[in-house]
């Protein structure tokens, strides 16, 4: 075999309290897409961050085309022909698409000034090649997270990388974008680019990738060409158990007749149009829509984080429905945001501090003083219940892997046990095992008489978990479907071509 494009050689990395990688070695070849698979916290992002120059390994190194290369900064990484699409979106929100694309490789005119037109043209070309029709002058903050993800990919492509890392590129994409992305991957492969593809969606691995490599607890535990692997093989390698029952199928439904919440009219000019809906006790209401359809905006408005033109909402108080005033909203709602790192956590604070954050009032002992013992006991209970992998409760939350961070956030709200839990993409970035856990947790939660409003871009998850599904399109609810509706109906309704039977 010829020299591989990229070789990880005995890479090890330890963080205080955790061995994130130990002696990981494998190759990636030109023109292949390699799936890098592993449970949450297995070390995938750490390994990629080493390649990206964001983290230095403790020992071992990286060989590119047989040569040892030192990558000590993101700039080094780029110079070595490595393109990186990050798990967390890394764009300048107030700059235009074109500016973001050329952020580290500006084109200049002969007198050294920026060649704006040239860049915008190239930008358009790259975006078109991804089947993405956006104006290069649009500010990135006006894009939904799906389009933002495409911009990131476009940026990586612009540098004609030899090696392209895609760290969970589809976690915020819906069907259409996904297939666009897969097309792009195929094109790149044919151009001889080596692609490392990290994902928790195992069903994507088989059509897209040529080979899979599995990490578990920081160790290389196996890998093979995709033809020689089955779904079960991969899961077994990942989890390390022969028992690979990773599906949680929700069968208990305990929707009650009485309501927890009634939204009579929620409007905000240009964004939300007269939204109406009911939420029953014990119900999981799925919210389906295309990227940028306004799901997040709806939830933020409901919780009272954004201004509204009309806020006409009723909530159950004892046995009656009473009007809900916006400033009281946070008393009834729990809110899991889609941006974990930006507004979900206190990254430098301890796990304990994070988990008690939403529920501090109920841990008061006397006057304004906290009962720290109770916080510890309660939080530990949920750490155990949610199977959060930590080294100790005082560990800073920022050092947890993405999946475990998400569990900490969920744990924070479960402690509070709000009447209504609003979950925006709660399983994004979670591995199959953790996803199953999360589903179980959501189900248990509604059993107690609370309700959940679930936003997810994973249509299977949506259909499996929801009691009813509301479809939102351009800021208004265009359909309400019972459980068991077909995927096709949902897709159609979301794009404004509803034909299915409405409730």
């Amino acid at each position, binding site marked *: 075999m010829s020299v591989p494009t990229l070789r990880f050689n005995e890479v090890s990395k*330890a963080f*205080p*309290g*955790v*061995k994130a990688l130990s002696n990981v070695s494998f190759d990636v070849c030109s023109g292949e897409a390699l799936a890098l698979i592993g449970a949450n916290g297995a070390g995938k992002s750490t390994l990629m961050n080493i390649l990206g120059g964001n983290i230095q390994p403790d020992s071992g190194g990286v060989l590119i085309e047989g040569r040892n290369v030192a990558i000590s900064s993101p700039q080094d990484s780029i110079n070595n022909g490595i393109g990186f699409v990050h798990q967390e979106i890394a764009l300048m929100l107030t700059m235009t698409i074109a500016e973001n694309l050329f952020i580290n490789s500006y084109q200049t005119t002969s007198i050294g000034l920026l060649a704006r037109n040239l860049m915008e043209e190239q930008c358009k070309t790259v975006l078109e090649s991804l089947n993405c029709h956006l104006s290069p002058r649009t500010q990135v903050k006006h894009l939904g997270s799906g389009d933002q993800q495409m911009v990131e990919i476009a940026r990586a492509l612009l540098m004609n990388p030899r090696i392209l890392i895609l760290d969970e590129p589809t976690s915020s994409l819906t069907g259409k974008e996904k297939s666009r992305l897969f097309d792009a991957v195929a094109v790149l492969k044919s151009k001889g680019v080596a692609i490392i593809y990290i994902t928790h969606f195992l069903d994507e691995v088989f059509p897209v990738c040529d080979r899979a490599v599995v990490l578990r*607890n*920081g160790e290389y535990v196996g890998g093979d060409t995709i033809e020689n692997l089955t779904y079960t093989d991969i899961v077994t390698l990942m*989890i*390390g*158990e022969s028992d690979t029952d990773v599906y949680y199928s929700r069968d208990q439904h305990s929707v009650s007749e009485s309501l927890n919440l009634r939204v009579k009219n929620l409007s905000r000019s240009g964004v939300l149009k007269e939204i109406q809906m009911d939420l029953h006790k014990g119900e999981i209401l799925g919210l389906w829509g295309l990227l940028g359809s306004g799901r997040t905006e709806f939830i933020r408005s409901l*919780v009272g*984080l954004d201004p509204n033109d009309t806020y006409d909402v009723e909530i159950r108080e004892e046995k009656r429905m009473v009007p809900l005033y916006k400033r009281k909203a*946070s*008393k009834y709602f729990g*809110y899991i*945001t889609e941006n974990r790192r*930006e*507004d*979900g*956590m*206190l*990254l*430098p*604070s301890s796990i304990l*501090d994070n988990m*008690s*954050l*939403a529920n*501090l*009032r109920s841990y*008061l002992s006397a*006057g*304004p*003083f*906290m009962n*720290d013992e109770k916080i510890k006991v309660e939080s530990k209970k949920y750490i155990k219940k949610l199977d959060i*992998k930590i*080294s*100790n409760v005082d560990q800073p939350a920022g050092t947890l892997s993405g999946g475990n961070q998400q569990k900490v956030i969920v744990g*924070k709200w479960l402690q509070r046990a709000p009447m209504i839990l609003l979950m925006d993409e709660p399983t994004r970035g979670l591995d199959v095992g953790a996803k199953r856990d999360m589903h179980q947790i959501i189900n248990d939660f509604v059993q107690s008489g609370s309700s959940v409003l679930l936003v997810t871009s994973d249509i299977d998850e949506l259909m499996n978990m929801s009691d009813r599904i509301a479809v939102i399109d351009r800021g208004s609810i265009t359909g309400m479907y019972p459980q068991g509706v077909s995927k096709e109906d949902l897709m159609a309704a979301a794009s404004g071509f509803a034909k299915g039977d409405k409730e």
Partner: protein
Amino acid sequence: MDRIVFRRVSKSVNWKKLLITNSSVIALAIIFCWIALVTPGFFTTRNIINVLNQSAALGFMVIGITAVFITGGIDLSIPSVMALSGILAAMAMQNGAGIMMAVLISILVGLFLGLINGYAIGFLRMIPFVVTLSIQIIGMGICVWLTSKVSIPISNGTYLNAFSGKIGIIPVSVIYLAFMTFVATVLAKKSIWGRWLYATGININTATVSGIPTRKVLLGAYAWSGLFAGMASLLITSRLASASSTMGQEGVVLNIVSSAVVGGVSFQGGFGTPMGAVLGTLIITLISNSMNMMQISYYMTLIVKGIVIITFVCLDSIRHRN
């Protein structure tokens, strides 16, 4: 096969970490010993009490700004808030007000100006630096206007005694400072407001989403700062037995900020304790006290002060990187 979780929690004492996190205490000890060795006059009970007494008023203002720093903000208005409180109280006493009235005025004026800052920053989302700078300028204008003729002497003996008297050999101001440091520490560590404050400083979005009334928390932090500026004016005016607009010059901010920073209170928000801040105040006061004792020239004092601050910040940033 079982899931293996790697865990390497070293139980042995981590000296480096211990050293870095307690840098201000250690520095205090070192500076103390060094000065004591170099300056014969220094290590007398009287001088030590002297230093403590000199730090008292500054300490109050530093406890005040600590809350603001924890939220990631800054309060540049403290000097003129302090001066204005003192001037109004002194004017009231000149017109026959008693000590209770004077104290009330000092505290309420401080609180009121703090609330203005806090409202602009918390509710109108204006930028702390500029809001408090404007209040500093406006406050200074009012001070000059009020006092234009003279600095106002204070002759109310009860007042002077209550805030610059002594119990035995201990100045009461030191006792007040110790007490308020204790109160602030307990509130920061044990109360829900303390938790809210730190959470807001670390990530205001997360805090808001988690149902913390962040706007009120910001309001409260600046109100607290104003309140302590008002209390500091009691100590200062009674110490100088007069009130004047010169008390409120911007230069004071320098000492406040240096003390907080040297005491390990972070500018970026989310870190620091009132206790640390007060230790920082002691260090800053010690520096000028010992420089005076050693008869070091004015410009050297400036240079040394600058170097001390920068050294501490350096330590601080190392601490944060770990």
